[in-house]
Structure formats: C-alpha cells, structure tokens
C-alpha cells in the first residue's frame, strides 16, 4: 500500500485530471467547480492544481445568486462562466462578474425585459475570451441589441444562441466570429429581422459552422 502523499506530482495530476474530467460531464456549478474540493485538502495539492489550471480546465461559475464581489477575489484569475436565470433574482452579481470581461469565457443567461438593458450596457465592450454566449428572453418587448455589442467583435466565439432578443446587426458581429461552430437563433422577433441575403452572406464567412438553427417567432 502506498500513501497518497508519497505519489509524485505528475501522478497526482493524473488523478486530479480524471476527477475533474468526470465532474465536467455535468455543467452545473458544483460540477464545474469540483476542483475546489482538491485545493482545500492541503497546500501541496493546491499548488499542483493551480500550476495546471489549463490542463485541469479550472473555471469559476458565477450565478445571479453568487456574491461575485466577495468571492471572485478569493481565487486566482481563472476563466469565468456566468450562467443562470436572472428573472428569478437581481442583476447585481451578474453585472459584477461581467466587470471581469477579460476572463469571461461563457455567458448563459435568461432575462426579464427590464433586466436586458442593464446587461447590454455592460456588454458594449470587448470580451476577448468569450467562447459560448446564450441569451434568452420570453418577453414580448425588449430592447434591440446594438451594433456595439461586444465592441463589434467575437473572435473566439464558438457557440452563440439568441432566443427572443432582436439583434438586426448580428451579421456584422458574426463576420468576426470565424471560429463559430454552432449558431442558434430561435424565437426571432419580427423587429429582429435579418434578410436572407444578409444571412447567406454571413454564413458564407463562417467556415467552421456545423449547426445552424433559424426559428422565427410564430405569427
């Protein structure tokens, strides 16, 4: 029998890798942040984990209920996932997390109409690490996403879903999203109309695109 503290770092890392890989089959906060239980064990484990943050795909998961201002400073500057249903809570925590825009890798949010305006105001800047963006609202009346959304550029974006939110200037943004793999535009409102010609021109630029969904709101 070998005691675990006699294992070399690379063996520990293999074990950690297996542990976090299993956790990430689930996309919820407890799974994404499963690595946190490792760093609480001892200083050596903590060092091994933080030295291998890319291999272990360490990320922090911020929800509308997570007190972002208090917790983000506790951890190293890891990539952020911001996800949750904002219709059930306030916007403060999400807005605080969006302030770390250079770290945000995924945004998956559902809004009430009145919340969207404040969110969009925070999204008029570059989010250089953003790979996954999903914005959903069921409200009938919503503000239109402007051309300055994401500072007009999404170079690392791979997955983009927009449901129920008008964004007539979307083709311009997608011209920069050359790594986009999945594009889901669902419940497209009438005033978010993009002409088929403009859509076709955009699609011709997306050489990595594998899945396309275009679903208009029922008349």
């Amino acid at each position, binding site marked *: 029998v070998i005691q675990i503290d006699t294992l070399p770092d690379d063996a520990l890392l293999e074990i950690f890798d297996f542990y976090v890989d299993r956790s990430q089959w689930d996309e919820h906060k407890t799974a994404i942040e499963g690595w946190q239980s490792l760093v609480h064990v001892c200083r050596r484990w903590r060092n091994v984990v933080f030295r291998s943050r890319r291999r272990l795909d360490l990320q922090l998961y911020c929800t509308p209920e997570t007190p972002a201002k208090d917790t983000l400073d506790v951890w190293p500057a890891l990539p952020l996932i911001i996800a949750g249903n904002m219709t059930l809570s306030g916007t403060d925590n999400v807005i605080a997390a969006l302030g770390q825009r250079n770290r945000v890798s995924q945004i998956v949010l559902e809004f009430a109409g009145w919340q969207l305006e404040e969110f969009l105001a925070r999204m008029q800047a570059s989010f250089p690490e953003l790979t996954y963006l999903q914005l959903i609202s069921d409200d009938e009346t919503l503000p239109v996403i402007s051309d300055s959304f994401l500072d007009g550029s999404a170079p690392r974006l791979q997955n983009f879903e927009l449901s129920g939110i008008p964004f007539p200037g979307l083709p311009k943004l997608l011209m920069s999203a050359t790594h986009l793999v999945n594009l889901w535009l669902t419940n497209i409102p009438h005033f978010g109309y993009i002409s088929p010609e403009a859509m*076709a021109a955009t699609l011709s630029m997306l050489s990595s695109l*594998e899945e396309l969904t275009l*679903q208009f709101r029922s008349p």
Partner: protein
Amino acid sequence: VKSFFFKGVVEYLEGLVTCIDTPRLDYLDITFFNQIDFDTPRLAQFINRTPKLWRRQALVEFDDNSARVRLPPVGGTFRIAISCSEPDWQLSSVAQVCNPSFPPLPPLSTVEDLYIDHKYSQLVWKSDPIENQLWLQLLLAFTAVKNLYLCKEFAPGIAATLQDLVGGRITEVLPSLQNIFVEGLRVESSEPLEENLGQFASARLHSGHPIAISVRDRNRPRM
C-alpha cells in the same frame, strides 16, 4: 454546415437557400408556418445539391398540430413539416410542399417504401372528392415507391383516389408500385375500401403493372 433547423415562412427559406451551398449537410429539419402557397422550387434545387439527405423510406404523418414528411421514418435525416391543425389544410399543404412547381423534390422521387400514418388524438377526417384529389397530388411526388403502407383511417380515401385512376390513368401515380399494405384490411369484404383496391389492382394487372394487396402488420417496425 452539417445540421440545419429552420422554422419560418417559405419565402425566407427560398431566399436563403438560393444563396448557399451545404455539401456536408446530413440533417435538415424544416417547419413552415401555415400559408396558402407552399411552392418551393429553390428549396428543391438546394436539396438536389445535397444527396446525403436522400433515403429509401419515407413517412407522411399527420397530427393535431402539423403535417410532415420524414426520411427515413425513424431517426431521420430530412424532415419537412407544416404547422397547421386543420386536416384538409394539412393535406393540401403537405401535397404542395411535396410537389414544387419545378423541379420535383428530389429525395421523394427516390423513396421506395412510403408509410402514411397519423397521430391525431381524435381523427376528424372527411373523405370527399377534394380530399381524394389532394391525396393524388401528394402521391404524384413519390414516383419510385414500390411498397405503400397505409393506416386504416386513411386507407378508404386513398383507395378511392386510386380507383379514380382506373381507365387511362392507371399508372399516372406510383408507376413503380408493387405492394399496398393496408391496416385492418378484410380481403374477402365487399366494403368500398376493398372494392376500390380490388378494381385498382385489376386495372394495374391488365396494364402490365401488377400489384399485390396485403394486410399491414403494425408490429413490423418501420425501417
């Protein structure tokens, strides 16, 4: 693009597919909103350029909210549906979608096994000459069908449609047909269903295009 899902009006999709080519497409799912006119010549040309979607089996299916064609019946690589709850509108719409003005919808012209079924919670389907004409229009698209599988609810209307062809038009639809499988068929019966099918089979025999009519076994799974 490997997968494409669309829900909207015909005109938008027609405009879009005119401008794009997707040679790697292996899943296409289309739902049209209810409209009067479903002419889709550009969609037909687009699909003509996408042979990965073609299959040997097809299902035409109706339910409370839509009518659709699916190739193949289970799983599926190509599905085209119309959101509509009125049965006669459903049949008219699906017949139109299957028969664009030009060219024909290519995957349908290669189908050899055709299933026509429904999933209505309560069937409200009247058999009349207009409906028969719509069945005829629908079947016209399936020029390579060898085996036709009918549920018992639609069989009388389709049988009446086929009986109308007795005379000079006997191979006008389903020219390659070899078998009709009908759910609940009573071979020795003299009900209109069996009479009409009998007359159609007899006329096909005399025209040199014989067909067999058999009971459809629902327990035999669709491919």
